[in-house]
């Protein structure tokens, strides 16, 4: 994971994360897949919780359950703690952790581990180690849930090109070869990763999402904030040399004006995968 300078986290990014969380939970019609036994989860861990929207919502919904949110970015954790304090929540805690270190918890401690990612910078090759640690701290019979968002085709050439740049950078990152063009989304690998980590009853659900200007603004806002908060991914786009800084900026500007067209249309997909520790 490329370390982002904590100071570089802008309020636009925080707003973007909030929209992302609302979008995902709206599409899933809840915080968790409906088939999971939510009432039975007493201790819950939210990995890469960001500014803690998922964890805070869960703590509000179930005041008797205990939630811990962890993230590598101290600045976001500060925002999360402040939110918890203002909301008067006593059943929630936010802790700092290092991505490449083991989780600071004893074995078989949690009933549920939630991975509603607040970052796209966890790459498929990092997951096996992360999931091994998650399986260790999970109780037998406990569940892991992973959810992510994927951008699809749109009617804006600027957006399509911007997403293409992100995909190329992503492909180069995961294939470790400069010519790689083929994009493999992390989200479509979740089910496979859960199987390989030793989970049983692995399933996934798809929730198609309208990003257009038609009725809902939330999908549209999510797209807008993703493009707006580009400085966060610049640490990722630029090193992979998919395009020059000027080109990226021009594409971004074109995208931002094109998505404001009243006839703009685009699609995305929420992918939610889950599995149980035997």
């Amino acid at each position, binding site marked *: 994971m490329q370390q982002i300078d904590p100071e570089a986290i802008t309020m636009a990014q925080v707003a973007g994360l909030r929209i992302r969380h609302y979008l995902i939970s709206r599409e899933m019609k809840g915080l968790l897949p409906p088939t999971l036994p939510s009432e039975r989860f007493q201790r819950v861990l939210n990995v890469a919780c960001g500014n803690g929207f998922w964890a805070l919502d869960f703590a509000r919904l179930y005041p008797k359950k205990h939630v811990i949110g962890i993230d590598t970015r101290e600045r976001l954790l500060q925002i999360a703690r402040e939110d918890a304090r203002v909301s008067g929540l006593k059943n929630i805690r936010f802790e700092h952790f290092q991505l490449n270190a083991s989780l600071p918890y004893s074995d078989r401690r949690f009933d549920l581990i939630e991975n509603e990612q607040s970052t796209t910078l966890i790459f498929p090759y990092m997951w096996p180690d992360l999931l091994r640690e998650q399986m260790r701290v999970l109780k037998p019979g406990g569940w892991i849930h992973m959810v992510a968002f994927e951008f699809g085709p749109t*009617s804006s050439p600027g957006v399509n090109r911007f997403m293409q740049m992100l995909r190329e950078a992503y492909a180069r990152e995961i294939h470790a070869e400069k010519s790689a063009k083929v994009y*493999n989304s992390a989200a479509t690998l979740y*089910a*496979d*990763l859960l199987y390989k980590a030793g989970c049983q009853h692995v399933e996934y659900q798809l929730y198609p999402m309208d990003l*257009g200007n038609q009725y809902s603004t939330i999908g549209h806002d999510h797209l807008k904030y993703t493009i707006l908060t580009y400085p966060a991914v610049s640490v990722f786009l630029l090193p992979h040399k998919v395009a020059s800084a000027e080109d990226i900026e021009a594409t971004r500007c074109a995208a931002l004006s094109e998505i404001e067209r009243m*006839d703009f*249309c685009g699609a995305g997909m929420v992918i939610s995968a889950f599995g149980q520790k035997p």
Partner: protein
Amino acid sequence: MHPDPIQRWLNSNDINLNIQRILHRYHTAALGGPLPAAIPLTNVRHILNTSCGPGDWAIDIARTYPLIHVTGIDANEEEIQHARLNAQLCQVSERVTFQHMPVGRSLAFADNTFDLIHTKPIQQLHPARWPFILQELIRVLRPGGWLNVVAHEWGVTSSDALNHLTLLANHAASLSLYRLGLLAERPASGYEPGVGPFLYQFLIEGGLIDVSYTIHAVDLGAFSKQGARIYTEAILLFLAHFKSLVCELELVDEYTYDSLLRTARKDMLYQPGSCGFAYLFSAHGRKSV
């Protein structure tokens, strides 16, 4: 050809037709029905179905609504023959007629003929040619009648090989349009969306009112989901058809393409965690009175 239509049907081994029929079934399930719920069928007597292929959509409609007549047209003569046979076997041939007629040119129908038009884009047509096609469809639609267009767009899957194949097929399709002089600029090697996300814009620009669209997921998780298994097999056969074009354009050699097909098959059908999806865009609008 065998004189007995049923025998002819059983003898036919056209993979392309079978693929189309499988795609039709699965897409209709993903869409939640043959037409968007927003389109009322009261006062609909005559429907036009362009790019009808082997006629499944037209026949489905005729079987469900016994008062509706459907005209199906397609540029492929052979598919039209199969569609006619299909209608005979389903005993709806009195209300479903099929004609060999290419879209992309003027349609041989009078103005304001149809109460409803259902169509899907053709692979060989670039989005830029759609405004003309729509203009022609809107001409033959009666005032107040609905137009519905359904388009498929590739998504991503857990198989690197399948993602690579769809990228190659997508790129080969736009490159061949460029070679035919139908595209001004040489397409970049990245993924180029089809007409799907542009339908909303095109229907509005075509002068329709009450324009709206919905987006649907087509699940390709072939290991865990039975329907997806058959669909993914059909998708792989469809991609196998692209081999000659991709190799002719020298995007990859035949050996590489074959091994990608084998790997994609293994990844999607035999990996317990296989996952993937495609998008369906369904757009509709009404001709103003």
